[in-house]
């Protein structure tokens, strides 16, 4: 290898080792520790005895994780919430992606920009907008009351409904962008040919457009599912107190209970849950790296 390549490779390698690989290893290590009073609030996993390192791994946290239904329920709930949210994103995003892909060429980039634009206003401020819409004295209740459809405000904020709306709102572009990329590459002649061969428009969609867009669908669903599983902010701000997703549980264990080992064990569980969709994303052809690799 040529000498000048060494620093080019070493800088990002070292960065990733120090700030990504090592921290994850520490998380795994501390997940086997016991909480203790003091700073940091856990008993060391690694101890020195007569010059020998003694590793004391205590699986107690994982035992709690598996036995206490609270944690398993949170994991399951996170997966369900993320799954339903990505499905909702698909239902809303597919027609949008298709419409943009079939729009006149000159409009496409502008329409795409229109879809992305709201997401540059700041994540928290987008959530703010929904709080204003959904609260008891918010605009939706105000409008419904004024029209006379209801006589007492509906409970909208701090419900599962609000949480789903918030997640779909936050992650919709992650669905639209890969779908659009896939759909815009489809040769329109394929659909024309199917129509020419006697398929109805619905048949054309079901037998040609949809099957050919499936890699984009998979990529989009994974891109919504993955961040939604670990999401903390939206369930916290829009969901009810019962919406204990895994991200929220981790946060609570860490910040409120100061149980760092338990938080680490929850983090490892979250990592395990993410392995499957991450592998699916890797396979879906939307591999962002290494399409040139050996």
């Amino acid at each position, binding site marked *: *290898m040529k000498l*000048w*390549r060494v620093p*080019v490779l070493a800088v*990002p*390698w070292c960065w*990733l*080792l120090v*700030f*990504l*690989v090592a*921290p994850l290893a*520490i*998380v795994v290590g501390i997940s086997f520790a016991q909480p203790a009073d003091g700073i*940091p609030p856990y008993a060391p996993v690694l101890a020195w005895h007569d010059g020998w390192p003694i590793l004391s791994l205590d699986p107690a946290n994982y035992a709690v994780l598996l036995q206490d239904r609270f944690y398993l329920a949170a994991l399951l709930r996170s997966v369900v919430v993320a799954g339903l949210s990505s499905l909702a994103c698909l239902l*809303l*995003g597919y*027609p*949008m992606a*298709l*419409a943009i892909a*079939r*729009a006149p060429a000159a409009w496409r980039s502008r329409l795409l920009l*229109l*879809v992305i634009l709201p997401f540059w*206003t*700041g*994540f*928290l*401020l*987008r*959530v*703010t*907008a*929904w*709080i*204003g819409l959904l609260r008891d*004295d*918010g605009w939706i209740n*105000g409008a419904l009351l004024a029209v006379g459809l209801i006589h007492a405000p509906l409970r909208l904020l701090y419900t599962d409904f609000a949480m789903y709306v918030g997640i779909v709102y936050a992650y*919709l572009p992650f669905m639209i962008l890969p779908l659009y990329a896939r759909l815009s590459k489809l040769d329109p002649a394929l659909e024309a040919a199917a129509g020419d061969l006697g398929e109805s428009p619905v048949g054309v969609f079901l037998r040609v457009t949809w099957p050919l867009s499936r890699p984009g669908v998979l990529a989009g669903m994974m891109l919504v599912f993955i*961040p939604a599983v*670990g999401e*903390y*902010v939206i369930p916290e701000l829009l969901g009810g107190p019962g919406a204990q997703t895994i*991200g929220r549980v*981790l*946060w609570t264990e*860490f910040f409120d209970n100061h149980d*760092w080992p338990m938080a*680490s064990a929850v*983090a490892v569980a*979250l*990592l395990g849950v*993410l392995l499957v969709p991450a592998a699916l994303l890797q396979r879906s052809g939307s591999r962002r*790296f*290494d399409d*040139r*690799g*050996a």
Partner: protein
Amino acid sequence: MHRRALLTLGLLPGLLFLYLPIILLVLFSFNDARLLTGWAGFSWRWYAALWHDRALIEAALLSLQVAALAATGATLVGLAAGLALARFARFPGRAAFTAALAAPLVLPDVLIGLSLLLLFVATESAIGWPHNRGVATIVLAHVTFSLSYVAVVVQARLADTDPALEEAAADLGAPPWRVFLAVTLPLAAPALLSGWLLAFTLSLDDLVVASFVSGPGASTLPMVVFSSLHLGATPELDALATVMLAICAAALAIAGRIGVARRRRRL
């Protein structure tokens, strides 16, 4: 006809869903009332309140400082990573490198935040650094999760350019450092710019990671907004969102102008 129907039916509900909350938010940031329901007349009072909110402005300045530093760091490290992926066909540990680089794209914020905090706590007890968590630790964390995005953009750009360009430069007598400065860097420049902007935005937007790795006294804008959102949304936050929206729109307009001017010059 068919196409127009698809455009309207496919896009309109989605765009309404995307824009209605924002339009209402902008509108009510000018509402002269404490409560959100009902229009009580036009007013700048929430913008004035924003202007006098010392905590918010200090947090915004801190966030901008963190974002600028983190974006610059992520661009430098991401450039090296993208360069390695696009230009070094084979090197030891390429598969592991690729996986490690892709990880921040799929890891949840809570996981990145927790793991980095545990690292900083461990290094503090081992080597005494960082003694105080704050700007430095937030910047390091933000570089870590945004360098992958920069690497993606840089790699895509370099993969699109003819590798013969760099060979041509060497052929014309340029040693490797000059090939890099005179050819590779200018070719990657658009990707570096968009990578920097992306990293800047990601940093400005981050609440979770910053909450983990920050220490007392260093609160970024999202951290301040989050704690006041816990108390409920106020028109002042609507005003803040409107200001951000305006800055964003202005930046886009300027970028668009530059793009048009550049295209014109080429013709």
